[in-house]
């Protein structure tokens, strides 16, 4: 609760920047990409850039066109229109040059049932001119103890982490993870998040598709929200939520009752309600409202028992933009 508060105040003082804002060169460029399947337009003019060293999210509901988009980037599918450049190569022209420079974890990765984890990594590493160190890969995805286990004995989460390790066997410039956590339980998902955060610390360029908003908020430097084959919003998770018209909510409890009318006079507070001794303040500039609130409490010598702030989430932005929840 309080960390949330400090977080808000601090970011308000600093200009909102991320590593990705320092104009790193674009590793992946997608311009006006279109793809049709018969009458169905799966991708209808998608554009985005992925810069070196950032984790870029493609966030959207099932069937939004995320997988089709990344599969075109990977060179697995042809496109009907637009331009794509991956590390300077067009996957439609130079698919092998693209394949050498990227690593992909598919939505569902299948391997021969009886192949052992280490064997699989060594086998696929052999297909590339330069390979990563297998022991290090096993550590990265926390599968050291499963090195001798066969694929069909691995849990869903372990299979998915092996898929991520396979995506890293060529020490790729760009890592593409297509819905890596879909279908996993909470524990397995957390473990995979740790792996992705490790990649982030190693400054890998990562494209992550997901329909989990929390995942995009937690892992991505920037994200594009994609729906019906179009990008409907793009930016850092903070920019995306800031774009939401929804206000932040500040909830507080005090030792002694306070006058609602007085709370309303605090600058930047737009409305106040009270339920059972708890006050809820709404503001579109929560950090400033908080500072004013604390100043006022100090001056009036009110004792604060509890305080927390709820910011609008990416989910709110998504609902606002599309009129529905993401998992509908």
């Amino acid at each position, binding site marked *: 609760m309080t960390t949330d508060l400090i977080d808000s105040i601090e970011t308000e003082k600093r200009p909102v920047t991320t590593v990705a804002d320092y104009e790193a060169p674009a590793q992946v460029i997608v311009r006006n990409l279109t793809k049709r399947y018969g009458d169905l337009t799966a991708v209808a003019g998608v554009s985005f850039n992925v810069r070196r060293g950032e984790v870029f999210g493609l966030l959207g509901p099932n069937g939004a066109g995320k997988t089709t988009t990344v599969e075109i980037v*990977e060179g*697995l599918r042809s496109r009907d229109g637009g331009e794509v450049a991956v590390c300077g190569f067009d996957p439609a022209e130079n698919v*092998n040059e693209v*394949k*050498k420079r990227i690593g*992909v974890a*598919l939505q*569902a*990765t*299948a*391997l*021969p*049932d*009886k*192949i052992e984890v280490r*064997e699989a990594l*060594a*086998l*696929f590493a*052999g*297909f*590339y*001119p330069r390979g990563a160190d297998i022991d290090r890969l096993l550590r990265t995805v926390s599968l050291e103890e499963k090195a001798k286990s*066969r694929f069909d004995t691995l849990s869903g989460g372990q299979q998915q982490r092996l898929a991520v390790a*396979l995506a890293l066997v060529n020490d790729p410039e760009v890592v593409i993870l297509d819905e890596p956590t879909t279908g996993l339980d909470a524990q397995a998902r957390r473990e995979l998040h740790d792996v992705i955060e490790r990649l982030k610390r190693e400054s890998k360029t990562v494209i992550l598709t997901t329909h989990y908003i929390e995942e995009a908020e937690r892992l991505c430097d920037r994200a594009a929200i994609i729906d019906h084959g179009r990008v409907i919003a793009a930016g850092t998770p903070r920019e995306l939520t800031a774009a939401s018209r929804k206000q932040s909510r500040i909830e507080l409890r005090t030792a002694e009752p306070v006058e609602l009318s007085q709370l309303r006079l605090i600058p930047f507070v737009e409305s106040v309600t009270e339920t059972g001794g708890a006050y809820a303040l709404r503001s579109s500039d929560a950090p400033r409202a908080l500072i004013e609130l604390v100043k006022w409490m100090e001056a009036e010598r009110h004792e604060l028992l509890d305080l927390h702030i709820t910011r609008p989430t990416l989910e709110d932005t998504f609902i606002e933009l599309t009129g529905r929840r993401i998992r509908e």
Partner: protein
Amino acid sequence: MNMLNAWVNNTLTGLKLTFRDRQAIFWTYAFPLFFLFLFAGVFARGRAEIVLTMLPGLLCISAMSAGLWGIGVTLPAMRERGVLRRYRLAPIGPGMIITSAIASNLPVSLSTLLMQIALAKIVYGIEIAGGVFATLITLVVGALAFFSLGFVVASLADNVKSATILCNLLFFPLMFLGGAAFPMQFLPPKLQDLARVLPSNYMVDGLYRVMKEGAGLAANLKNLGVLLLSCLVSLVIAAKLFRWEASEKMPLKRKAWATLIAVIFVGAALFVKR
């Protein structure tokens, strides 16, 4: 050099995986054994002379089933499960998958054929007239022809189900018309002409000449040549039609090319015979 290493590694891994699948490996050896004792014990009543006459056909049936079911159905199963999709992400082509699968299947298949010959010798006391080398070469070339045919099936079939149907559609004519089940001379003349197109004829004839009549490779050049040519044509068609994913539709242009190659090949074979 690097790609060669990858190829060797992929082939050895394939071989290792074959032996790890206990059930599959059991049937790989049990099936030829069953056929050997059915043919030699029941049909030939254990008489060495007749067992030796039947053996070429039997070896051909084993090679055919290894090629058609071992590759023709296994590969679509890998495709259906999405294993090929994972391979597709690597910078390798169908050639790597096809040649590597041949190389890892050949030793296994060859060992079952040699097991049949060895058991026929030990149990029924057959006397093979030809040399070991000539026999081995004929077996390898025959097996390669049917492996390649297996790849054609794998490329044509959309899924495991249609691959199984295709295998059956090919297996029985190859067996009954191709001289594997009984000598081709038993067939009506018109059917004999048609049967001459089937590669199984050339394997059976080649093995018969070597094993029964003691012919060397030089006397068998035609048989070996036809088998190798059939192998080559099949591989070209299979590579042209190769699909990594179950959802991939076969482009009409590629289908047309493959059909054209097949028609020219079969047409030429019929024409040459006349």
